């Protein structure tokens, strides 16, 4: 028989075991969000494709045609789409997981389960969108008769990095949102500005001057976007290692501090939310 002891001012030792016990809840919450998302829409899942497609078209026209951004060696739409892929994933994961606790108020105030499940499962939901977009990218590459570089096998590493970065940032936003609903307004700003500030619509190496490159790479998503391009598009998109290092460092930092902050505030979620 398992014994459970609850004491004031002490974090539970059982937490990680509970997380394992509730592992299926990750799946069920993500499954619920996916099932519900396109209920009562006419074209349903097609929205997952249309959203990144339209953004790509807009960026291609604005940056490529009007802005004459250079895209050496690859068709411009491919360059944009390779940047869009991680960016879209990061931004939806960030907003969804940031909102997730507040959106599940009824659960949090009425049932116990490790709260970590909630933001984590909303990232899984965003990952499904990501996968759909990835298939679309494959089609786009076939259209352009573009063979992916051999480095494409390293892509899972960058996907994992994007996953971890969104999770770390999502934990922060989610627990802050419980206390301060201000973040409901802050997050859309981050997402909106981020699209233009990050190297989604252009190639970092040909637009950002070399002396500012390191400074520019403080934005952790830059290293990931460049990594995606390097993996998929190959040698025309050289990997800038300091940027990758910065992304890695930021991700680890966010995950560690995010987990600590989340665990620290978790006990009071039900009282405050």
């Amino acid at each position, binding site marked *: 028989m398992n014994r459970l002891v609850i*004491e004031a001012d002490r974090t539970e030792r059982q937490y990680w075991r509970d997380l394992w016990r509730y592992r299926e809840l990750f799946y069920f919450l993500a499954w619920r969000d996916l099932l519900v998302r396109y209920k009562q829409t006419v074209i349903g899942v097609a929205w997952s494709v249309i959203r990144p497609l339209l953004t790509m078209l807009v960026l291609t026209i604005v940056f490529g045609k009007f802005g004459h951004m250079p895209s050496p060696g690859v068709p411009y739409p491919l360059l944009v789409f390779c940047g869009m892929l991680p960016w879209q994933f990061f931004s939806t994961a960030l907003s969804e997981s940031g909102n997730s606790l507040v959106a599940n108020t009824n659960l949090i105030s009425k*049932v116990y389960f490790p709260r970590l499940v909630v933001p984590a499962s909303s990232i899984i939901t965003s990952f499904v969108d990501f996968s759909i977009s990835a298939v679309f990218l494959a089609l786009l590459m076939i259209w352009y008769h573009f063979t992916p570089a051999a480095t494409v096998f390293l892509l899972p590493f960058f996907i994992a990095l994007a996953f971890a970065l969104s999770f770390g940032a999502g934990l922060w936003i989610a627990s802050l949102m419980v206390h301060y609903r201000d973040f409901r307004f802050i997050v859309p700003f981050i997402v909106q500005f981020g699209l233009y500030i990050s190297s989604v619509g252009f190639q970092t190496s040909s637009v950002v001057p070399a002396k500012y490159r390191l400074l520019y790479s403080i934005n952790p998503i830059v290293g990931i976007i460049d990594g995606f391009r390097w993996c998929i598009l190959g040698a025309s998109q050289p990997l800038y290692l300091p940027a990758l290092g910065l992304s890695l460092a930021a991700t680890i930092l966010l995950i560690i501090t995010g987990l600590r902050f989340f665990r620290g505030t978790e006990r009071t979620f039900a009282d405050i939310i």
Partner: protein
Amino acid sequence: MTASAISVENLGKRYVIGHQKSKDDGLRHALEQLARAPARWFQRGSVRATRPAKREFWALRDVSFDVKPGEVLGIVGRNGAGKSTLLKLLSRITAPTEGRIQLEGRVASLLEVGTGFHPELTGRENIFLNGAILGMTRVEIKRKFDEIVAFSEVEKFLDTPVKRYSSGMYVRLAFAVAAHLEPEILIVDEVLAVGDAQFQKKCLGKMRDVSARSGRTVLFVSHNMGALANLCDSACWLEKGRVRQVGPTRSIINDYLTQNGPSRDRVLPLASLPRTSGGDGRLKLTGIEWLSDFPLRHGEPMRARIDFETYSAIEDVTIGLGFANIEGTRLLTYDSDFVDGTRPTLRQPGRHSVVVTIDSLPLAPGVFNLDLGGKSSDNHSLDYLPGAAQLEVIPGPSTPGSIVRPDGGVRLSGGWSWDIAEEPAVLPA
């Protein structure tokens, strides 16, 4: 193994009042504090001393009790006595401020029926979702799926989104899932207040099975004294966050009912009573004043004015008054649209009142619970106060035509006349 399944020692939970509105909270304050941090390092102490103390409130304090394995413990207490807080602490939704809880075995809690049900999902999908939220594994849910469906009696609508369910179906399905959990300890809040009487009975039976057959420990909160007496071996009476008395259910219920005797005041304020269910904030019942004889008299006219406030325009308003017995079973309902279907539309926000008259009060002498409520045309609850007060009905000079007894029986006016054979007769068999 120790002797108790649940052991609670000196448990306490403190809340900070007005947390949401307090100036000390909110992002601006947090940022301000952060910006001022360097300054504070230099003048440590002085700044901190000037900070206003937040108002604190102990929802629960010094609570200790033990529950033996297989025991069913009922928890009684008035609204705001700390019952819900206790359940939240036991089910780990919130953490205690002080004290210790020790639980032996898997805990499942049911603080609300259908937590996590999603209106857009079908009954089938919701069974899986809700089961997972309550801590069941997918294999477990699959194994019990047919049983759950049979218990809920909604087979035909399994593939219909639950937003199209009637509220009865919804509750049945939700309870069916919860009833098939197999925890060693089950914690149940006032979930049976919903659902029809027949289903309530079925649920009570199921809960009884849970504890009797498999030796599970159950903690049960209810205002329904009948259900408590029926189900629980012993009871714990909470008052103002502390344990007032623990003992056999019957004696606790008796003491509790004696203590919380009938209201002696002709005017009863309602605005500050805690609302546990219903209401969307458009209307609030603020008070009731008895205009006729008080205490109420059996068989005599009863008149009362119900005051309420509205905060926006509401169409087709009905105010309702009901009497229930001490166990919480409704005996009499009298809604303002009952006689002629009049449902006024209240265009202006403000204070309104309505006077209710019953020509001859049919309630038999005894003590009753007063239920008050308001609803709008679409049967949408505007405000609901079950057990707003306890009222005593005293004998009157006359006997009304029909009488409603506290056990729910009704004596009607009319009669029976007999025609009895005087001679034996031979009848064909």
